[in-house]
């Protein structure tokens, strides 16, 4: 037990069907009925409540398909502004219990409550208090996993959804972990999963009982040794608060694959606008611009370019993105996702940039600053590049990651 005292207590808090729960909250007449967030036959499901999930509806599925699975379900458009508001208040609740909060997304965070136990009680007691406070204050539920590592805490929260709580004590980690299928391990995607099945490794216990060297030979150094460690429940990553923003990215999954270059470049421009305006709002500039392309067969490639001078303009960034995309020379290939990444971020303050010869004094930078101001006042999208105005934006599930 001596060792256990040195072990941290980590909570993983995950809102239950967040977008759908907020939609139920705002439309009480639909409560308990199958409800899907993601409207328009050509867009994809962003979130589905548990009544809708009974019909097999899952996130990222085309709305058209979901409609065929449950024709009577209610389909609502997302309200991103509302989600961020609620998310902010929930994060505030977390911070009352511990300063060590690591938000993963709007509806999910790790909390290290090791130092809070004297003040607020055990991890389990803190989890109960947080769950109660969120439900009372916001009217929606969450699930909490409690463990001595992030990996196990996250696994635990996913095993007690919805509206549940699961604590895995340190001495129970292996008996909890080993019977699980390998696909439950963090980082095991369809490809690695297939590889593991080919090796006859189905459960986490199978991985744990395979020599580390064998795993490394089959999966490569990084994946092989990481899997082996996780299979033994060993995960020493800390909860990192306030991680300085290393990159900003925006990606778009199309509900139907795009192949028209004009259309693809329009999406890239939209993503550039989105990512760079977020970067400008934080007073940052990027030295590295990257693009991501996922083909219809899920093959994904990315390319990047680094400059000595950091940039922050939509048009400047788009020019680089366009060049990177054109250099791929994949005209006509069917794409299911495109993404833009801004990396190597530096503070804008006092940063000079080198304009092009003949660039107008009042140029894109000033125009974009004006657009950002207007967006702050009238909502994003109130002013946008002309080539983005005409067409309805492509059906999509948008992902934003920091």
């Amino acid at each position, binding site marked *: 037990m001596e060792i256990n005292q040195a072990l941290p207590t980590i909570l993983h808090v995950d809102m239950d069907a967040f977008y759908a729960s907020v939609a139920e909250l705002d439309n009480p007449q639909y409560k308990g009925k199958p409800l899907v967030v993601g409207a328009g036959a050509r867009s994809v499901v962003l979130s589905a409540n548990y009544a809708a999930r009974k019909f097999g509806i899952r996130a990222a599925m085309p709305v058209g398909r979901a409609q065929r699975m449950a024709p009577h379900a209610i389909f609502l458009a997302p309200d991103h502004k509302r989600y961020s508001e609620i998310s902010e208040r929930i994060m505030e609740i977390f911070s009352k219990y511990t300063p060590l909060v690591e938000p993963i997304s709007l509806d999910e965070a790790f909390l290290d409550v090791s130092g809070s136990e004297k003040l607020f009680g055990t991890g389990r007691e803190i989890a109960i208090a947080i769950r109660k406070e969120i439900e009372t204050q916001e009217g929606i539920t969450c699930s909490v996993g409690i463990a001595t590592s992030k990996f196990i805490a996250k696994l635990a929260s996913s095993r007690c959804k919805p509206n549940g709580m699961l604590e895995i004590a340190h001495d129970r980690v292996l008996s909890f972990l080993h019977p699980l299928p390998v696909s439950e391990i963090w980082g095991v995607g369809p490809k690695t999963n297939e590889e593991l099945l080919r090796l006859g490794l189905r459960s986490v216990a199978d991985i744990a009982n395979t020599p580390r060297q064998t795993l490394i030979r089959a999966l490569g150094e990084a994946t092989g040794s990481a899997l082996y460690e996780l299979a033994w429940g060993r995960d020493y990553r800390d909860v990192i608060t306030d991680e300085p923003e290393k990159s900003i990215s925006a990606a778009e999954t199309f509900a139907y694959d795009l192949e028209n270059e004009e259309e693809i470049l329009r999406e890239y421009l939209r993503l550039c606008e989105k990512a760079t305006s977020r970067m400008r709002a934080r007073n940052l500039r990027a030295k590295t611009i990257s693009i991501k392309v996922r083909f219809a067969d899920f093959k994904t490639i990315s390319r990047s370019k680094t400059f000595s001078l950091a940039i922050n303009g939509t048009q400047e960034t788009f020019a680089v993105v366009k060049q990177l995309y054109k250099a791929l020379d994949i005209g006509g290939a069917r794409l299911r996702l495109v993404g833009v990444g801004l990396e190597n971020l530096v503070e804008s303050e006092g*940063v*000079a940039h080198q*304009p092009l*010869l*003949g660039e107008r004094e009042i140029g894109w930078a000033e125009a974009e600053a004006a657009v950002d101001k207007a967006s702050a006042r009238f909502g994003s999208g109130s002013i946008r590049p002309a080539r983005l105005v005409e067409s309805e934006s492509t059906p999509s599930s948008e992902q934003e990651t920091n």
Partner: protein
Amino acid sequence: MKFTVESNVLVESVNWVSRSLSSRPIMTALLGIVIDVSNEVTLSASDLETAAKSSFNADIKEKGKVLVPGRLLAEIARSLPNKPVAFVLDNNRVLVTAGTAKFTLPTLPINEYPNLPTMPENSGFIASDVFATAINQVAIAAGKDDSLPTLTGIHVDINKETITLAATDRYRLAVREIQWQPNNLDIATSALLRARTLADAAKSLVGITQVSLAVAPITATERLVGFASEAKTMTSRMLDGTFPPYRHLLPSESIAQATIEVSTFLDSVRRVALVTDKTVPLRLRFADSKLQLEAGAGEEAQATEELSIIYNGEAIDIAFNPTFLMDGLHAVGTPFVHIAFTGSNKPAVLSGKNEKDGPTADNYRYLLMPMRYAS
């Protein structure tokens, strides 16, 4: 194949052709130098973009043609003692002997060697030192980004007796005009050539008085430019693409002008720029016969310096990338630099001046876009 030649003749010839050797060729034959012995000895090498040939007289005993490893031949040639050098083909190997030094070179299959382009018809002559200087003056402004290939080139615009060389990486533009003697006085053509290739060729022009320029006509199947001097020739493929129009960028008027001694200015820029990295702006304030240089800000290291200069016009604050500024100061090639300003956020034009009070040389202009602070 069997011949004997003076080592200095060999070295000069090998040096000329080895510039066209590619280190990572798409076919192994291109790693070699062809030695073709007939009435004279001709060496040739190519990386497919450029091809170089050089011929010399030798004491020829037996004709023949072989392909030998290029880098090895170049290194051997440079390290030989100053004695006559004998080449003899012995089965599949070439024996090279000079004094007491003996080398054996393997041969490469010569039938795999591609046909090299022939020199286009001669278009005229240029003084080689003028040409070399001009190339160096503009090459510094050429882009280094291979994803924008047209900007890695030098645009050569030939109009009657004037050749205008220009290069830009979009942040600065260097333009140089030179005079030449065209064979056809009404010639009007242009070419885009890789700046690196031209700069390399310029290095080899030392010690030669005149170079002949051969530009393949626009209608030719292969767009080539050839350079020839005495027994040395080089051809280079033109770059594809259209060089951006640049003449409208050159301002015709200015609001203020400065004249500064280049060596003291360069020393100051170098010192002040020490406190920052190469891409952080150097801030300059021109006012009342004074130039203040400043770099760094806030809690970082800072440096300032002040110079006495000749200055006409309203005070101006302007910021430059120090590397770009130093490139321009080196390139004017005169003891004094004349800088014409068109505004704090507009391009400044550097040109040369031989004397403080003398006229401004208008055959070279280096246009530099100032840096701007994020607002």
